[in-house]
């Protein structure tokens, strides 16, 4: 246990801890060389685990978290960065290394893929050629490629900017798409008959509708637009429509299959520039990211701003994780910033992720893992991050030939990215198996 302070070979007293019980080791502290890197530590910890139980031979690689950040270089550098004394006991948390995402498929479109979302079985993409596409995720996983393409919907009169699934459990599925044509459209798709119906067209924005988000109860959705407004709509038929001519409209719809025209439940004005990202952070609580350099959390019941966080650049996108309750934003610079919406005094950036070299138009938290998220940048890379590793992503997902416009990780098994090279690429997030 004694620490040897040689000139070039310093030993550090460390204690390995883990939250993954199957790999737990006795809590004694060990002395390791300070110039070990991740692979070196891996050897140490593997030997340590094997020592404890004889039967376990196949062990995965581990990653190491020291003082809340991933170990990237050597232990020594990390300790020096943290300004931790070499003489103190260092707690190293180790966790099984996230397996690298594997590319599954590339879906060719006729135009830039500006929006996509993946449900448990179906992938919905929105294109700059005004169309929506439906893809069979199971088919994709089976490697069917183009044959997995299920449906093309000529949905809008202008490029589609965002899409989202609403109900996916029953055979009658609902989704919403928004477009530059200033509308958001609610669609119902019968997966069995493969027929799609536009049930309502939400008019109210005076400029391009940039983003859409469905609330947790799947009853409401919020849209943000270039016209600086945030509008809340109901998904179903109740509310928000004129009571007087309900009957009339129903008749009309039945007669001509015309979509119902919807008006917003509430319009929230406050941003001075366009709203780039919207996300529900709770019941009746919406967070928006705007080009006016601010993040706002709105109360949709009262219709006011709950809190505001000011940044120093235009926000393009925002993502919220119910697990960590943190907001991730993509900005008009190359950084991804993490904010805590509960801390509102001033602009408090919890963490800044630097690896992209150009604008980051899209970030998405993982829905199942607390620390993981993906981001897509104009530098043609999708990056796979752990929020404890702010300087370097875990993996770079290459393949796109042009700017990434959107990424999605709604289906925990698949990371999907849409790009201006007219493809959407599907990556399996769970490794090879």
């Amino acid at each position: 246990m004694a620490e040897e302070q040689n000139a070039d070979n310093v030993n550090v007293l460390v204690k390995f801890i883990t939250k993954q019980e199957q790999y737990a080791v006795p809590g004694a502290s060990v002395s390791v060389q300070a110039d070990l890197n991740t692979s070196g530590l891996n050897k140490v910890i593997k030997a340590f685990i094997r020592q404890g139980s004889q039967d376990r031979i196949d062990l995965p690689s581990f990653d190491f978290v020291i003082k809340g950040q991933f170990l990237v270089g050597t232990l020594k550098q990390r300790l020096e960065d943290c300004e931790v004394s070499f003489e103190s006991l260092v707690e190293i948390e180790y966790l099984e290394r996230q397996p690298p995402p594997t590319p599954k498929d590339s879906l060719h479109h006729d135009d830039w893929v500006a929006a996509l979302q993946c449900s448990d079985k179906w992938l919905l993409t929105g294109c700059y050629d005004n169309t929506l596409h439906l893809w069979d995720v199971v088919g994709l996983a089976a490697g069917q490629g183009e044959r997995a393409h299920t449906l093309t919907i000529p949905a809008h009169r202008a490029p589609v900017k965002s899409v989202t699934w609403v109900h996916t459990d029953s055979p009658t599925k609902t989704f919403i798409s928004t477009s530059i044509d200033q509308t958001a459209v609610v669609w119902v798709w019968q997966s069995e008959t493969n027929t799609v119906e536009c049930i309502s067209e939400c008019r109210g924005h005076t400029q391009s509708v940039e983003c859409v988000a469905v609330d947790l109860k799947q009853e409401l959705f919020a849209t943000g637009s270039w016209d600086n407004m945030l509008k809340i709509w109901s998904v179903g038929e109740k509310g928000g429509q004129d009571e007087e001519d309900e009957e009339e409209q129903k008749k009309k719809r039945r007669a001509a299959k015309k979509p119902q025209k919807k008006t917003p439940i509430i319009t929230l004005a406050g941003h001075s520039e366009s709203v780039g990202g919207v996300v529900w952070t709770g019941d009746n609580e919406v967070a928006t990211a705007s080009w006016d350099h601010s993040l706002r959390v709105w109360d949709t019941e009262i219709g006011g701003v709950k809190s505001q966080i000011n940044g120093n650049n235009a926000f393009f996108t925002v993502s919220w994780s119910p697990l960590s309750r943190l907001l991730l934003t993509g900005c008009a610079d190359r950084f991804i910033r993490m904010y805590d919406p509960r801390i509102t005094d001033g602009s408090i950036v919890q963490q800044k992720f630097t690896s992209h070299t150009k604008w980051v138009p899209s970030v998405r938290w993982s829905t199942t893992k607390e620390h993981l998220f993906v981001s897509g940048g104009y530098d043609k890379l999708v990056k796979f991050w752990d929020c404890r590793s702010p300087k370097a992503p875990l993996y770079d997902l290459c393949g796109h030939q042009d700017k990434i416009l959107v990424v999605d990780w709604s289906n925990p098994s698949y990371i999907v990215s849409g790009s201006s090279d007219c493809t959407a690429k599907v990556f399996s997030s769970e490794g090879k198996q």
Partner: protein
Amino acid sequence: MSEKRKREEISDSQKDILSGDGEKVNYMVNINTDDDGDSSNSEGSDIDDDDIEDVSGDEAEESDDGEVDSLDGDYTFDDNEEEGEDDDEEEEKDDNEEREDDNDDKNETENKTKVKVDAKGDGDSGIDDPSQEKLKISKSKKNLSGKLSGLRLQTTKADNVASKQENQNSSQDLGKPDEYAEDSSDEEDLRNTIGNVPVKWYDEYPHLGYDLEGKQIIKPKRGDTLDNFLNRLENPDFDRTVFDKQTGQDVRLSDEDLATVKSLMTNRVPSADYDYYAPWVDHFTHEVMEMPLTGRTESKKSFVPPKYEATYVAKRAEQIRRGLIQYTKKKEERYRYYNLWSDAERTKRGISNHLPAPKIRLPGHGESYNPPIEYLPLGAEPPDCLRRVPGWKSFVKDRWERCLDLYCAPRQQVMRVTASAKDLIPELPKPQDLRPFPTVEGLIFRGHRSIIRSISIHPLGKFLASGSDDQTVKIWEISTGRCLRSFDVEAAVKCVAWNPSNKLFLLGIVLESKVIFMNPETYLTDKVVVQQTNSVFKEEPDQGDYIQPERVKTAVTWRKPTGDEWAKGYRVVVDHFRSVKQIVWHKQGDYFATVIPEGDHRSVLMHQLSRWRSQVPFNKCKGRVQTVQFHPKLPFLFVVTQGHIRVYNLQKQRMLKKVQANSRWISSIAIHPGGEHFLIGGYDRKLNWFEMECTRRPHLLRYHRTAVRSVAFHRKYPLFASAADEGRVIISHGMVYNDWLKDPFLVPVKELKGHSKFEDYCVLDLTWHPYEPYLFTAGADSTIRLWH
């Protein structure tokens, strides 16, 4: 023993001592060597009477100490000795009286002989002699004390002593006593080499020390108490025998030693030959001499101030305190003569700032009369006289000239500026502190197939329009770089400009001699605005009884677009008589100006969109009009010709200002959103920043190496950009202040490179995003780039 006999004996012994018998004198000298260091430290000839007394006292004490030491060693023996001494005491007292008498005589004779000897040597002997005498005395005292402590007797040759005394004499002859003359520590005849350590350390050993060869000196055998007793009875010399601890031998004290002991005990001068009754010799002459003979420091007594002085001072101080004594100010002496050289006088006379004459150089080797060999010129001999010294000639001349200089030359202080070029450059802040400004390329808008002449950003800041030589007008989404719409037109597009009004969705396009207003019916803006725009242009406005002047009629024709053209989005077409270069909107979006470079006197035309009316504002146009620009706040129009900028007040219809541009061929103008400054870019590579109030002194910015094509101010941030044909776009920070006296703060902060060249053109147009610090540049390489 009868008294007489005794006397004879003593006188005999006395004689022995006084006769200067070798052994006796030697004894005195040699004992000194036994003594420890402190006796040799005593300062030879400087000792005077007082000192002698002190010394004797000290020595006596020391001798006591010695006895104590010896008591430790051998108590019984010492007891005996003391007894013996006591016995002798009475006898010796008598003896001494006798001896004194004798001594008088003897001393007289001796002194005489000594004086004789000294007279031979030097004249000063009269003074030196007595001191020497005293020396002897002191020495002898010390010797004795040494003897008492160490109890060691030595006999050396008389010659030695004689020679020593001679040495002493000779050294005194030189006037400086040799302080080592009597120091015989070198000659010490050491038998025991243990050094100055207590002998009792060797009590337990059979030996009592080591001889010079390192062999042990074995303690000689001592008899027991009985032997001692027998010895006491039998040995007649027992009472004058002492034990030498160093050697372990018994030593018999001679008569002379006894005499010395006796005289010490009676506090007399221990030396037996000391003459108490020697005639007085006047050591110090009674005559007052100018120079004191002694270097003796004054006694401390002399520094004690007399008491009366202290009382006097105290008295005065008390008087001053009480205010009884008042010192009146000394009357200032009336100015009569001035001190020519004093600085105070000079300033009084108005000659301030006395300047000292320049310092003369320090003499070097050339001026040296006796330089070291290595500093002599090669092969030169040291000069034999001063005027042969190499530096002599110039030395004399220099001195002469310096004297002349001091005498004649008036001095004046020259203000010298010691500033390095660095200090003259204003301190620029770090570019990081001036953020935000565009630094990197964010997006590339690809799609055009030819040179892009002009770009314009819609005031909403979401999309921009571009016009290219490939005869298309494209509308782009800014956030993604996506081309949303593309319109084919009949000719190369010279200029595009969005209508600044938020009520109209209208893009002005310049095609050769046509100016087309197009409503690109996209979903980019509110449908209401689009429809409103369409409805405005559906009908031709009623001209009423307005008659178009001939001059205008021949120049401009307004017309409705044909059906096809309407379908393409055209809403109004304005045909000009010659090719149009530029269209500039007034900020309210109703008026616009067009520039026709070849239009001679009709180069600039003003139009009103809502009433379809045109106007030729100037009867004459001097020079070729390059560009025009509206003032952002006031109804002013800037008309830029090749070498001048004319500012017109449109309301009062007169020229406000004519500015001589500091440039030979102006290419572009940008007006600061505050309206008080404008920026001129020229084909002669210059960039000039003008202030409206002070147009004579523009700030010249030489950033570019080739012709400047385009300049632009940001509407919100203190930024401006300039593009030149070499492909560089330079972003500068240009802060203006409300204080007119304060110069604008111009700092170039970033150089952007990215566009490639095409036919010597590179960046043709640039424009700022309306509210973000993004810059858009249109290049000849058919791309538009966004910089953020």
